[in-house]
């Protein structure tokens, strides 16, 4: 949902079309069609959701957001279009390239393969939340220092993968960094410098 057309969203939650009705889970849709918007939102927090927008509470970078999302909406879509957090990139949209890497409770996850309705009550950390109190994460510093970015489109996902590695292993080997980034696709070819930057951030030089 774009979040840019409130009229459209309101229309969707008020007036479920026949097509959407048929596409959705029949009984839920039928009951929801007769409910007021507020009731629908309340109902949506129960186990069965959809097919229309449903209320969720998201915790992103320690801030709480109350949002309406469609059950099929991915976390990447919600972050990018509803919250304006476009640092999380979508490139393959099927969990191959890891440009959309975020942390869920500290573990890396492809936001394009994660449904927003499934991450309530979990801590989401995005690239925008990695720097603390205006101070860059050591991996971010090292990426700048070693020139580990070119076009920069893969960089947020790459940084999230490398920072997560350092969180679980403060003195990784080169092979550990390769393993941590083997799902992160970079077409410009920043890999050698990504390795160097991550090892530098861990207080080691690259051989």
């Amino acid at each position, binding site marked *: 949902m774009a979040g840019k*057309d409130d009229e459209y969203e309101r229309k969707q939650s008020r007036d479920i079309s026949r097509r959407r009705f048929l596409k959705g889970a029949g009984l839920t849709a039928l009951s929801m069609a007769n409910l007021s918007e507020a009731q629908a939102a309340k109902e949506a927090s129960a186990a069965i959701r959809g097919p229309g927008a449903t209320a969720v509470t998201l915790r992103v970078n320690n801030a709480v957001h109350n949002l309406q999302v469609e059950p*099929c909406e991915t976390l990447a879509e919600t972050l990018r279009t509803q919250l304006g957090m476009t640092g999380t*990139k979508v490139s393959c949209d099927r969990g*191959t390239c890891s440009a959309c890497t975020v942390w869920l409770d500290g573990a890396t996850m492809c936001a394009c393969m994660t449904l927003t309705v499934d991450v309530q009550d979990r801590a989401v950390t995005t690239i925008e939340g990695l720097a603390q109190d205006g101070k860059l994460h050591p991996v971010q510093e090292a990426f700048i220092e070693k*020139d580990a970015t070119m076009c920069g489109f893969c960089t*947020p996902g790459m940084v999230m993968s490398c920072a997560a590695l350092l969180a679980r292993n403060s003195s990784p080997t080169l092979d550990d960094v390769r393993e941590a980034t083997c799902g992160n696709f970079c077409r410009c070819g920043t890999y*050698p410098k990504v390795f160097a930057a991550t090892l530098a951030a861990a207080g080691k030089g690259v051989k």
Partner: protein
Amino acid sequence: MSEGEKKAAGKGTLTESKKTKTIKVPIGIFGVNIAEVEREVPLDEPPPLPVNAELNVLGKPTKRLDGHLKVTGAARYTADIQLSGMLYGRILRSPHPHAKIKSIDLSQACKQPGVRAAHIITRVVGTAKERDEKTRAIDAKILFDSSTGVPIVKYVGQPVAAIAATTDRAAAEALEYIKVEYEPLPFVVDMYDAMKPDAPKVFQGPTEQEGTAGGGGAPPGLPQKGNVRGPEVAGLLGGDRGDVKAGFAEADLVVENEYHTQIQMHSALEPHGLIADWRDDALTIYASTQGTSSLRDDIAHLFNLPKNKVRVITEFMGGGFGAKFGAGNYGIAAILLSKQAKAPVKLMHDRKEEQTCAGFRPASVQNLKIGAKNDGTLTAITLSSHGTAGTALGAGVGWAAQNLYKCANFSSQHFDVLTNQSPGCAFRAPGQPQGCFAIEQAIDELCDRLGLDPLELRDKIDADEMRKQQRNLGAKAFDWSKRKRAGSDKGAIRRGVGMAQGEWPRFVDMNSSCELRLTNDGGVEVLSSVQDIGTGIRTVLAQVVAEELGLLPTDIVVRIGDTVFPTGPASGGSVTTGSITPAVRKAAHHLKLKIFDLASSKLSAEPEDLIMKDGKISEKNGGNSLTLKKLAKELPTDQLSVFASRTADYGGFEKGNFLGFGRLSSVQFAEVLVDTESGRIHIERIVAAHSCGRPLNPLALESQINGGVLQGISWALYENRHVDKASGIVVNPNVEQYKLVGAKEVPKIEIVLMEEYLGRSATDATGIGEPAIVPTAAAIANAVANAIGVRILSLPMTPDKVLAALKKGGSR
């Protein structure tokens, strides 16, 4: 200088001062043969720059100015932009490789929730067009089915209709309600099938396609039989020479092979796309493009708009590699949807579209024959190549065979084969990696057969002094002396080393202008429409200004990627740095002269006795000084501004199309391990020796060389698009089944960056993007041959091909 050269040299100098001065500039390779040469240059040119060792900022590793934005996710790409009231566009694409469209019904689709605009695609760009045989003009109308007025489908993924809706999902869902009635036609997607006399014709008659800023296209008027167009017998650097028949008669031995290279998808992380915002009086475009100015011109031409009514903005872009020039079918669709809906429309390819119909490096088959004397002297070279860019032209294999080595007798012919596949386009160093894959393996095979060292033979037959130095320094860094005879390693896993070399011409884009501003608070801004496609030109421009004005790069604000600024070059063919930096230095120099004029009265000194250093204007002899900030307060107006454009190359151009003298040379060495049981090739290390004129930012240059090498490795070993012959459908339109090099396959890459002075411009810098990929695949192939004693003549060098080669070579 010939008459032609004089004419070429004069071109582009119309606006320059007629008065000239003579300056002495460095020339040669630093540490090898550095000297000075006199050049007559326009009077307004800045004084010559000394070698990098005598400079403060240029040539020093400099962190990217936009690094902070990129590592924090704050950098905004086209894909990230959301405008108020913005709609999302989607394109319906043909599932057929060749078909007539009998009818299209948008009515149901238009009734779907959120749909605001829809149209039938009536114009398809990027493909070849049929030629009117009488007028020899390109006749776009022939493409259309006269009964419906809709273009004939020629490839799977060809756009048929477009829809804009309030959300991306609504637009995607509405596409399902478009009713299209196709009449499938016979088709052919395989190059060899397409060459058969009875093959279905992709086009009904001979075709034409003009080149674009990013390359591609083909010479006009060539003959075409069925799907085979050509021969093309001359390219950028001329055509045949000497007498190949006589040359082969002189030869003691002949190396003759057929070399195959596959297509390569650009696979940029940010897909193609743009946002079109057509208001009553003007069109604003946010685009993921390699050329803001050239895109503006393309759109103005396509939509018959004055150029000053079209604005193109590219603040950040997520990779192009040659595929992102021009409006594209997606762009045309977005612009029409925006016009119809009276709202901004964003239309980005999804990954499937990106890997199906967003361009590719064409495939090639090369029959290459070289004749040589027993001492390795080449006597004759013939090359016959076929290539396919699907429904596009321009599948040539460059000029490596023609131009890398001394050989009096050369002859070549190239044929484009049309197939019902989506159109190919320019990809990093169009043609050259393919050409190098063939000639560099042939030379290596010649060495093996004559028992010569590949470096020694090249020292003898390659006239290029830069490559000689690169071979020398590269060999030392690599430890070439440990090379063993081909096939001498034993065991299941065999080690091999190899090398290959290449070159790329030095082009200049004279559309390279900038404005430089000094505001009365001491701030300095550079403005140009040139875009940073990831190479780091933003930082380099700041370095150039900082060097001239005695400031730090971080003191300079660089505003680029917007056509409201002075026109900058499109980023293709490694032209950006060499084209725009001299203009920026010129502007900085003239701003400095204005500053000196102003400062001279304050400091009671003559302007020519002043220098700028550490943010201060001071007397050369260390007398009085004042800070730029303080002086700026005294500006007669709030802002001082200087405009400057690229001066023609010092000493003129080699050719009229702004081909500069000198080449971007490269030599790469590879060390590989080949598993003779599994067939897997593992690359241990690459040493890459490169030249790019005066290196301006070694940090970013290294990154680009790494990138070229890795794209070369990826092409050499992994990338392989599969198109089903029975349906014309791309069966791996994604980035998991289309295998790309990843973190685990990245070898150690060592870079030998040469410092070369050509004496051709105020910065004397050139680009590095293209040459970095040119020799990589050939170097790997030579290393593999050295390891296993058998040559693999076909890319990608996948395990099945390695095992087949071993079996054929009898080495297992």
